[in-house]
């Protein structure tokens, strides 16, 4: 078997240079240092480029994430040959690939969105066209255009990896690069466009007076259900989809969908299952806010406004992604010694606890070192920017640099790859119906429901006890 027929990430083995937790700690310290230095250069309101306006910085952060996903998940490092990816020093590789990702990012935003779409299609993608309109200042023109662009990014950052993780690249899985990458890019971009028009276009259309009824559905159809006309309702569930895709891909090892053997059914269930899980998260994280801060009041601003609450759902969701990726990238998906469902449950529990701790830490301290504002609900407080910025750096480090210097890359042999496949299949097949499994399922489900209701009852007391913002 030719090892090049599998993608690079699957065909590489990362070998720790030191035992124990040292490599994870070294990697964390190193990436946090890079994070802080780059945050200061590009984003920090006190720093050099000050892109955290916030939408401009957010737009570049989101699109950079997608470009990284495209380069690795869709194009498998094309046009670089496997030999180059395997043999080049991680630092050189990191610099070259990052530079390319930034170039693609700029071409995409300046060329496609502002240049083509903003000049020949939808004016709100182009700041200059907006500035030419009465009463729109240059600052808000740029912010509005960035908002539209990043809303598109939010959708693409769910659908692009979903086509690989859930749909397993069908029907182009056997095509060579770049045909495979281009095919998946086109389909996910097409789907993103449709979802954008259904979810976000109305939001943009009511930014102007009068509402642009001729071009968009106003008031938007979600108004009554979401208790707001803001598109943040959609930002929320789409962000949850993005997080869920990566949970499924990393700490869940594509479980529970991997249990389904029939290919078409597994892919279908995985794609819509991710959306279903995301909606559960979407509703739950909204409810969490209602329990801690009280019921949202339409027309208010900040923490009591439904539109901000929905946005905050997305912000909360991303806090789950950070520990999940850390467990996979730097803790070798610990633990691995139990059954697949037990491993997944333990990792998910650890991730949830870590996410809560990270959330508390962020809101207690971020204003002290990131240049953001103290408080939860400041309109310019976007925890998604620093968290995704950190994730981007981890992706560069893990995907482009093979976790250098704490790990080294060793290509897997054909036999090792086959063994990995066999083990993954065995793990999934080992979950088969037996009476014991059935009893466990029932007891577990009852415990899960109980745990949910205990959690939501305890939550207000927990929140009051910790007093995050003094």
């Amino acid at each position, binding site marked *: 078997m030719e090892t090049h027929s599998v993608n690079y990430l699957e065909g590489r083995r990362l070998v720790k240079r030191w035992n124990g937790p040292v490599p994870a700690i070294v990697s964390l310290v190193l990436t946090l240092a890079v994070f802080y230095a780059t945050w200061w250069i590009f984003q920090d*309101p*006190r720093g050099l480029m*000050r892109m*955290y*306006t*916030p939408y401009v910085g957010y737009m570049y952060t989101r699109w950079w994430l997608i470009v990284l996903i495209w380069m690795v998940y869709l194009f498998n490092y094309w046009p670089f040959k496997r030999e180059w990816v395997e043999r080049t020093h991680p630092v050189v590789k990191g610099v070259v690939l990052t530079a390319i990702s930034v170039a693609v990012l700029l071409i995409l935003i300046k060329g496609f969105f502002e240049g083509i779409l903003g000049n020949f299609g939808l004016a709100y993608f182009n700041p200059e066209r907006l500035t030419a309109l009465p*009463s*729109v*200042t*240059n*600052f808000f023109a*740029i912010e509005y255009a960035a908002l539209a662009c990043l809303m598109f990014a939010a959708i693409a950052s769910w659908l692009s990896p979903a086509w690989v993780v859930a749909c397993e690249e069908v029907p182009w899985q056997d095509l060579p690069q770049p045909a495979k990458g281009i095919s998946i890019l086109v389909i996910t971009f097409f789907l993103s466009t449709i979802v954008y028009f259904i979810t976000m276009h109305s939001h943009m259309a009511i*930014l102007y*007076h009068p509402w642009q009824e001729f071009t968009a559905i106003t008031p938007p159809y979600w108004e009554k259900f979401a208790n*707001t*006309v*803001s598109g943040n309702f959609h930002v929320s569930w789409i962000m949850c989809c993005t997080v869920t895709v990566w949970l499924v891909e990393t700490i869940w090892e594509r479980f529970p969908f991997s249990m389904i053997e029939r290919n078409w059914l597994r892919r279908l269930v995985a794609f819509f299952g991710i959306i279903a*899980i995301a909606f559960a*998260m979407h*509703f*739950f994280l909204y*409810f969490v806010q209602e*329990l801690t801060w*009280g019921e949202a*009041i*339409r*027309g208010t*601003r900040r923490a*009591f*406004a439904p*539109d*901000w609450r929905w946005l905050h759902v997305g912000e909360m969701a991303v806090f789950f992604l950070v520990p999940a990726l850390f467990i996979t990238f730097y803790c070798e998906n610990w633990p691995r010694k139990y*059954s697949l*469902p*037990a491993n*997944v*449950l333990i990792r998910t529990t650890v991730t949830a606890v870590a996410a809560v701790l990270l959330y508390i830490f962020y809101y207690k301290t971020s204003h002290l070192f990131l240049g953001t*504002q*103290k408080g939860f609900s*400041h*309109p*310019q407080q976007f925890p998604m920017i620093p968290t995704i910025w950190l994730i981007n750096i981890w992706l560069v480090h893990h995907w482009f640099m093979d976790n250098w210097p704490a790990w080294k890359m060793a290509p897997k042999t054909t036999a090792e790859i086959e063994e990995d496949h066999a083990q993954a299949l065995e793990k999934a097949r080992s*979950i088969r119906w*037996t009476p*014991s*499994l*059935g*009893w*466990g*399922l*029932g*007891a*577990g*489900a009852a*415990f*899960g*429901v*109980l745990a*949910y*209701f205990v959690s939501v009852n305890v939550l207000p007391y927990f929140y009051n006890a910790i007093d995050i913002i003094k």
Partner: protein
Amino acid sequence: MSDNAKQKTMSRRDFFKGASIGVMGGVLGAMGLYSYSPMRKQMFPHVERKMADIGVCRKVKVTNISETSWFNNADLVGDIKGAGGLLVDQYSYNWPPFGDGSGLGKGSYEKGIAKIKHLLPDRLDEAWALQESMSVHPENAGGYAALIEVTDLDGKEHKYLLDSGWSYKWTDECFRREGIDRMLQNGEIEGLFISHEHFDHYWGLPVTVKYAPEIPLYIPEGFYPEGMQYIKDSGHKGPVTVVKPGLKPIVPGMASYVFAIPIICRVYGEQSLYFNVKDKGLVSVTGCCHQSIIQFAETAYREIKYENDRFHGIYGGLHISPFDDWDPKYDDLVISLGKYGFEKIGCNHCTGVLCAKKFIQAGYPVVQGTARFRSKDPAYLGNGDTIAFGMDV
């Protein structure tokens, strides 16, 4: 191992596999089915109305000394953008009176105040002239300030200032136009309430201090060290009350309320005023109302007892579209405001002209202005205009 023992071990393993799947399924199922269902509302805490008694006043009159915080949106927003956006520390913009000649986004309170401290509070003309040569867009600075006259049930009148503008030159001009200078010198004004630390509400403090250095000052908790130092550097010698978040009665029928909220340009906390007007209901007077007028009204509903249990009026900057920007959440406000039943709405400053027009279009009882003294549009109350609650003007 015997077959029976093996069977037992296998069963236990299967049970835990099933249990792990079940726990995740149970949690996710409950999250999805219950969390946004109408049943969840049973779990919301019951809100007890505190019905705090702040007393009753006979009438309230508000004179708009200046609502034009700045004169050109494009210049102001351009400066904010150039300095790095809405999160940048306001003292670093190099706007007057803290300009030091180093350019946009490169200033600091310490460097700026060092240029003018020796001139405060008595030589404000010189201080401002100096700043005109050192700061960014000094001609764009205006300011927000309002005179509040509260008449209690015995007919006694209390006067307060809400905010003290920005530009020394403009604020002083407006004070003289409305006779505030004399009122301050005569000791007629009992206190100065600073709504929040923003440049356009607070940086004109020395103008008030020039006329009444002993005036009691009420600031919301959350001022940054620079803001606290400015009180001293302005030459203020009177008592300073740092109002904690929550309700603080002032005189019968009047109370301050501080909201602990983050605000753009690195500001924290806002103070607004409630009045309980005899036979009319609750009146809200705000500087910028970053907490939102509906939040302000909802807070009053939870906290205060007021006449007829009715919302009567609003005056102030309602902070909706101060830069002529728009967002769907503002439409949420326009749509929702009607159900609160305000009978008199006086808005200006950071409410935004577009928002005032949307209020009028929605049929709300907006008191329109005269668009004098550089105010832009009669859709809202402008400089020199007045509004009264419990009386006609």
